[in-house]
């Protein structure tokens, strides 16, 4: 009775006060409320860095090439392209019906302008390195060359020629990254810094930017000038950042969100029971690993590194800590890249108990026992799951005579410390693919890479990576060389791969065309809603 009265009172009060203020969308519009776990930082393709922005920019812009529903490469602003025999010159033919949202044609000159802008040091683009394979691009970005010297040229309004430093078989895949999308030269020259504001932003994708209220929503509306607008089914896409995952689940259940790109993984089992097929979980191109200080005693001993890696029960961590939202990982390159077989750690198929026995023997041989423990500090950035992972490893290594201590810092402190090559033993890190190629994962362990936190330095590894780079035009040979490089890295335990990431989306059964794929890429132009 009390409940009914309370309900009636609250309902009557709120309805009375809210009368006239409720927002009612036009009935004709198909609106897709797309939940995201984080707010975007920017909609300028040259100033973005996160996957949250990548999703939005994929709707707003079209690069030379794009990805379809399965993350396969498809033509974008370019309808076709040819590659010179030596693999260094790409000639793109742009669509003649490719238009900016203001109705002006997308020209080769726009791409020339965009590529130069990305490399211009004054732009301050975090992803300028995405076009470093282009001749003189890196020189421009590092102030050693002039923009005119970059290997990018407009042959005519519809023909773009790009000259690379060396054959780069993953170059087309790189062009799917948002940093390489075009920007309207005319618009930027006319509006300056304001070109990015809603209403001003001229884009060439399936949607255009209508509104942006930070931390509330970003509204994208269908771009009638898009060359394939006839096949675009969703009229309005609202990107809705909902940082609190539990709230996001309630919003989904209440119908306020049609999809959400993250899940509270600790509730995954319950969510699967509750939402059934609407929960999408599967392999995603990302590796969760521990960097290990390979140039500092005692960690400079590969045998010791191997023992530690072997003793970690990845199945337990994936299942219990991450509730199967991650998969056990034994290679730096996760599975899922066509034509590539990752090089797994040799103990991957051994039962865990045998691994622990083998690890114990190695540690004893090296003089580490519970009486004379090996001291090891794990650094990790703030996150409940990172902490739980480190605690699990601490417990797993204790019986082997390894005295693990934990050190937690916030993300900025953590990565600043690693970047400065600070003194540590083991540190949590991760790598998510920018493009679908093993090179993106293997490049971080190269001697010169700024992301080589382990300071791993192996001449054999460098040689194999160089060989793969030289095999540019022969994909099969190149993949074999990369696998050989990974074999060296994994056997050396240059890093300790622990888990492969998985995508975990919740998608309303009203949505169609949201196809699972290893890049977790879901362009709104291919999605429809009942």
């Amino acid at each position, binding site marked *: 009775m009390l409940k009914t009265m309370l309900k009636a009172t609250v309902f009557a009060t709120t309805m009375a006060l809210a009368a006239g203020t409720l927002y009612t969308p036009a009935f004709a519009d198909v609106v897709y409320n797309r939940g995201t776990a984080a707010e975007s930082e920017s909609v300028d393709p040259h100033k973005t860095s996160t996957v949250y922005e990548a999703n939005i920019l994929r709707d707003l812009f079209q690069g030379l090439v794009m990805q379809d529903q399965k993350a396969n490469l498809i033509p974008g602003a370019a309808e076709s392209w040819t590659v010179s025999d030596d693999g260094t010159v790409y000639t793109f033919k742009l669509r003649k019906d490719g238009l900016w949202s203001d109705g002006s044609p997308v020209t080769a000159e726009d791409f020339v302008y965009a590529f130069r802008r990305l490399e211009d040091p004054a732009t301050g683009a975090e992803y300028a390195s995405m076009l470093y394979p282009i001749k003189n691009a890196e020189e421009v970005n590092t102030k050693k060359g002039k923009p005119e010297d970059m290997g990018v040229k407009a042959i005519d309004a519809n023909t773009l020629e790009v000259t690379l430093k060396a054959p780069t078989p993953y170059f087309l895949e790189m062009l799917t990254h948002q940093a390489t999308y075009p920007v309207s030269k005319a618009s930027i020259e006319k509006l300056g810094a304001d070109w990015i504001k809603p209403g001003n932003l001229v884009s060439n994708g399936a949607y255009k930017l209508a509104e942006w209220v930070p*931390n509330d929503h970003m509204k994208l509306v269908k771009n009638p000038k898009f060359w394939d607008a006839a096949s675009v089914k969703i009229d309005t896409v609202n990107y809705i950042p909902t940082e609190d995952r539990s709230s996001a689940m*309630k919003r989904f259940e209440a119908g306020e969100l049609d999809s959400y790109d993250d899940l509270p993984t600790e509730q995954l089992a319950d969510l699967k029971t509750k939402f059934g097929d609407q929960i999408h979980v599967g392999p995603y191109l990302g590796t969760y690993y521990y960097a290990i200080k390979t140039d500092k005693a005692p960690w400079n001993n590969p045998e010791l590194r191997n023992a530690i890696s072997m003793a970690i029960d990845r199945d337990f961590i994936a299942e219990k800590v991450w509730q199967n939202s991650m998969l056990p990982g034994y290679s730096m390159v996760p599975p899922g890249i066509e034509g590539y077989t990752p090089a797994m750690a040799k103990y991957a198929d051994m039962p865990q108990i045998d691994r622990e026995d083998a690890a114990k023997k190695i540690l004893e041989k090296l003089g580490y026992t519970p009486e004379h423990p090996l001291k090891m500090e794990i650094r990790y950035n703030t996150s409940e799951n990172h902490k739980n992972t480190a605690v699990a490893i601490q417990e797993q290594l204790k019986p082997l005579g390894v005295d693990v201590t934990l050190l937690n810092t916030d993300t900025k*402190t953590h990565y600043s410390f690693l970047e400065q090559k600070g003194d540590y033993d083991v540190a949590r*890190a991760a790598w998510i693919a920018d493009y679908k190629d093993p090179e993106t994962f293997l490049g971080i362990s190269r001697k010169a890479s700024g*992301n080589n*936190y382990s300071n791993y330095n192996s001449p054999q590894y460098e040689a194999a990576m160089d060989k793969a780079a030289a095999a540019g035009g022969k994909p099969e040979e190149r993949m074999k060389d990369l696998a050989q490089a990974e074999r060296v890295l994994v056997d050396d335990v240059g890093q300790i791969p622990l888990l492969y990431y998985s995508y975990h989306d919740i998608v309303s059964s009203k949505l169609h065309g949201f196809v699972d794929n290893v890049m977790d890429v879901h362009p709104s132009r291919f999605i429809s809603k009942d």
Partner: protein
Amino acid sequence: MLRYVFRRLLTAIPTLLVIVTMAFFLMRVAPGGPFNQERGLSPEIKANLEAQFGLNDPLWLQYAHYLGNLLRGNFGPSYNMPDFTVTELFAKGLPISIQLGASALILALLLGSLLGTIAALNQNRLGDYTVIALATAGSTIPTFVIAPVIQLVFGLTWKLIPIGGWGDGAFINKVGPVLTLALPQIAIVARLMRGSMIESLRSHHIRTARALGLSDWSVVVKHALRGAVLPIVSFTGPAAAALLTGSVIVETIFSIPGVGRYFVDAALNRDYTLVMGTVVVIAIFTIVFNLIVDVMYAVIDPRVRYD
């Protein structure tokens, strides 16, 4: 009184300068910078970014630039949201936080005072115990528990309010966050009011009033309330500053685009200018509301004089 207000506003200037200076240098002492992230940047790219935001200048020059810009009302660009200046972010977020905070504050003052007075008038009886129990629960149950319960009950089960979102400022979107913000404040005000009202009712002038045969209503409202309300006024100053500048927990759970979330996010992201902006805004609110409280004291209690 006007001279007093003017003097207080003048002394606020050096206070603000000290706060800004401390915040500026403390932020720079914290390890890591705005461009440290999971995916490390090459030194050249990082240098380009730092140059773009003037972070490669000597620290004293950066400080001088910041102060110069601040004097012109320019809070600078946000490092982590480069499409917006800090001023633009506040222009969008602050009105939202103020709407929610002001609603919660008014609700807390009205309801809290009423409950506190009821408790005081029923001291050591059922009404008193009920209010004390509710107030204890209200002030001890954390916001991050209250908010999901409100979402679950009012939003998901009864479908009376949205779970989250600002909805262009529709009233119905404000119900959940305002209730969540107000509940702990109602509890605090009720407890404060109960205590001060009991004290006030025991004072000599109230006894005299009763002896003169004034009605209960007249005794409580016209005479006891004026004295009892002073602790509430003291509480209102800092509470208003805190509520009006947003709550990170409430805004995060209800997906409200106020400025509360910037306080924590900006610090974690080392978004120096946004951190400085939030510090300045909080400082100004705190100074202004403390001043208002002091002035209110003089208005309510004729014995208080500042001249």
